[in-house]
């Protein structure tokens, strides 16, 4: 059944779009975008004709084959028009995170030598204008959203529809040009430069070809076949490889509808209206979802709560048996079905998860507790593993073989082995060409013909991959005990009161943690107990909050080996923030930055008699201004560790 899709391996991404638009499915819905409160639908023909107009518009403006077009845009159809239009005329697309600060945006545009930038709205345009003095290659800036643009009188800036108009005029005066450009593209050509979020350093530009992306989509679907009526919901940042893999490669290969939310803030409601059937999410999404369910259950009526508890008990029973690959008895099945009708269906519906056939988590480890919880809820959640450099994913759980300690088995076409140092190595047609303008990093990453993932892991006897952590992040206590800080962090983060946690202990006598409370949840907890507070800083240093978190740490400790238990912790006086460089744009913790910034706190936790540490720290606000926060932070001991 997959044979016809294998033919896609000899196509390019834009050729797939034109085949679909020109074929019997041309009038089917390809994209759906909520605008003015109504879901607007666009067919494959609409999609192709916009992409054609935009691509030729760039040609009319002077785009040469092989030049880069940076796209700085939220999830909406114009993103895909720009991407596919660029690719169709031989350009290379570069996604830029739209929540990045001007300086970071400038770095990517400059490093990629982009000659054109698509900036969604005034906010994005302002960033590009701010840094364009340092962008000698930049020729024109194309804006998508006309709101507020009437004030812009800049010869370098022009609106999206005008580019399309220029493209249509070009098309009329240059018949056959577009077809020639489209036919000139080869599968092994560079399609996208994807800047990795860079937990360790400045983002690197991974070069992916059409074949890389298409191979990933085709082989992945050989594990979990797609159906023509599947619905994708595009809500993750478009420059992220996971979103590209789905909304571009998979959608084009299998002809699946991509749905876009109206605004970032309406994502939840729009998702409920669409009812996606396939959903990718980073661990943060699933953790947030778990927290959301737990908080809502706290708030509901006692009767509903009781029904939920009962349903979840039955749900856990079935989920645990499935995770242990034990057969379900008739009673298990009946109770499981009953629990679904009793409560779980309503919970899934409320969280936009009701129609999901396949849910995936990836990008970082997801805590087993969260994983087990969501499976008990009835979500077919599976781990997958991969990286930008392999165009998305290389391993995934099979439906009947899900285990939370592994990330599944390799997809067809991916060779996987473990190096003597314990590093995961991969090989296959979806492995990237290398890093743009960084031959040295490329040599290291592709040494010996294998992709070096940088992750430490091992294979089980039956071929499942277990990822321990980043090779560089596995830590060793002073006595030589190995531990994975991420694993402990996930244990801690399972508590609804814990927003983020950073675990320390490398070369130290014991494990300690810096914990950030979850402001809405702890805030509600405090209000319910009539504990007054003002700011995050104030709330985080309340003795009652310390006691609350200490209890949560003890609970997490119970499931950890003796040596890896958290003995001391501090509650941080501020939330970790990407603008302070403490998180990456995909919200992964940057350990080194935190180690440097909070050195005093860390030393205090390992001091002989820790108590209060005076703190003077600089906080950077969204507008770039900085302020100094002064407070005293308490170091807490955890009993029983």
């Amino acid at each position, binding site marked *: 059944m997959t044979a016809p899709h294998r033919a896609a391996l000899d196509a390019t991404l834009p050729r797939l779009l034109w085949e679909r638009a020109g074929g019997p499915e041309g009038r089917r819905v390809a994209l759906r975008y909520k*605008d*003015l*409160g*109504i879901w607007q639908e666009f067919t494959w023909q609409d999609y192709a004709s916009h992409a054609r107009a935009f691509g030729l518009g760039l040609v009319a403006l002077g785009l040469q084959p092989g030049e880069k077009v940076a796209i700085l845009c939220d999830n909406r159809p114009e993103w895909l028009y720009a991407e596919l239009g660029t690719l169709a005329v031989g350009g290379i697309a570069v996604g830029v995170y739209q929540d990045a600060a001007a300086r970071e945006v400038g770095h990517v545009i400059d490093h990629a030598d982009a000659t054109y930038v698509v900036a969604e709205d005034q906010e994005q345009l302002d960033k590009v204008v701010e840094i364009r003095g340092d962008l000698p290659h930049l020729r024109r800036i194309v804006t998508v959203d006309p*709101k*507020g643009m*009437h*004030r812009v009188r800049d010869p370098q800036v022009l609106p999206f529809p005008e580019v399309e108009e220029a493209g249509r005029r070009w098309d009329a005066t240059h018949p056959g040009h577009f077809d020639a450009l489209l036919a000139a593209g080869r599968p092994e050509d560079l399609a996208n430069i994807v800047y990795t979020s860079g937990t360790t350093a400045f983002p690197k530009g991974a070069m992916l070809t059409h074949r890389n992306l298409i191979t990933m989509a085709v082989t992945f679907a050989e594990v979990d076949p797609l159906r023509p009526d599947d619905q994708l919901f595009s809500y993750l940042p478009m420059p992220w490889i996971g979103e590209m893999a789905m909304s571009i490669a998979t959608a084009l290969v299998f002809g699946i509808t991509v749905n876009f939310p*109206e*605004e970032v*803030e*309406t994502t939840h409601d729009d998702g409920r209206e669409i009812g996606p059937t396939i959903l990718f999410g980073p661990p943060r999404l699933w953790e947030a979802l778990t927290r959301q369910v737990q908080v809502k259950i706290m708030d509901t009526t006692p009767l509903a709560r009781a029904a939920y508890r009962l349903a979840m008990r039955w749900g856990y029973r079935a989920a645990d048996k499935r995770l242990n690959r034990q057969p379900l008895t008739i009673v298990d099945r009946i109770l499981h079905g009953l629990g679904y009708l009793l409560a779980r269906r309503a919970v899934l519906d409320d969280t936009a998860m009701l129609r999901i056939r396949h849910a995936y988590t990836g990008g970082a480890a997801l805590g087993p507790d969260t994983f087990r919880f969501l499976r008990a809820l009835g979500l077919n959640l599976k781990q997958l593993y991969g990286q930008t450099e392999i165009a998305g994913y290389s391993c995934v759980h099979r439906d009947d073989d899900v285990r939370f300690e592994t990330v599944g088995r390799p997809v067809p076409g991916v060779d996987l082995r473990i190096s003597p140092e314990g590093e995961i190595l991969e090989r296959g047609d979806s492995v990237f060409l290398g890093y743009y303008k960084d031959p040295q990093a490329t040599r290291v990453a592709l040494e010996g013909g294998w992709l070096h993932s940088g992750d430490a892991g091992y294979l089980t006897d039956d071929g499942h991959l277990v990822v321990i952590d980043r090779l560089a992040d596995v830590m060793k206590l002073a006595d030589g005990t190995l531990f994975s800080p991420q694993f402990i962090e996930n244990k801690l983060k399972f508590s609804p009161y814990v927003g983020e946690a950073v675990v320390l202990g490398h070369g130290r006598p014991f494990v300690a943690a810096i914990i950030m409370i979850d402001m809405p949840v702890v805030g509600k907890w405090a209000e319910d107990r009539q504990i007054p507070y003002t700011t995050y800083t104030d709330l985080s240093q309340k003795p009652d909050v310390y006691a609350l978190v200490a209890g949560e740490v003890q609970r997490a400790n119970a499931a950890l080996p003796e040596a890896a238990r958290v003995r001391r912790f501090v509650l941080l006086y501020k939330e970790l923030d990407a603008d302070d460089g403490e998180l990456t744009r995909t919200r992964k913790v940057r350990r080194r930055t935190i180690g440097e910034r909070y050195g005093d706190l860390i030393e205090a936790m390992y001091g002989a008699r820790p108590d209060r540490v005076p703190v003077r720290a600089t906080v950077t606000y969204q507008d770039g201004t900085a302020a100094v926060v002064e407070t005293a932070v308490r170091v807490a001991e955890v009993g029983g560790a």
Partner: protein
Amino acid sequence: MTAGTAGPLLDVEHVSLAFGGLDVLSDVSLEVRSGERVAVIGPNGAGKTSLLNCINGFYHPQPGRIRYRGREITRVAPHEIARLGVGRTFQNIELFTGATVLQNLLLARHRHIRYGLLAAAAYYGRAQQEETSHRRRVEEIIDFLDLEPVRHAIVGGLPYGLRKRVELGRALATEPELLLLDEPMAGMPIEEKEDIVRFIADANEELGITLLLIEHDMAVVMDVSHRVYVLEHGRVIGVGTPGTIRSDPRVIQAYLGEEAAG
């Protein structure tokens, strides 16, 4: 700023207003030209809100005339003035708190509804077409003011800053030619103020709405208005561009001086 050729859009001439023995407005004259953004500033109790109430017909001043597009409206009822194209927002938000944002904005379309009761009952043909176009217009305002996330939220449950924005949306939904804004940013933190300033400037520049606003925040007034009138004890004590007003010694003494002292 485009007009001024065919006479002012709004012309207030020698208006006085007294409640019992208390003079609220004394001989106030003011004009607003089509396309302008005009601010009225002044200390508390200077008569700013009373002036707006005279313009949109809540109060009828004794001596004095108010003309809109050359037509005298001094004694015209508020709903008639609204029908002529004068919109208004209130300092203390006036919305249907039990209804959703969308419902509040749709209600504001009332003056544009042309179909009759029978057509509404049948909901066919003209009534349906009109309702569709009203919804579209309202959705454009929702988009304009970034209200999508709260489209279906009950107004009473929204935070203050958002309710202020909905109030502005309600006024915009009436499609006014002249919009009277009574302290549209009062009590807001600086970030929300900046948003409202942007919306107000956009309403003027993109939608072509003429604006007359009362505002306390001097920085905002300087940012947003083309011309400023200064009111004190019911009298106009200064008029000019924000720059000249800022350096007018009488104004500094009467208004800015008092602000600085208090």
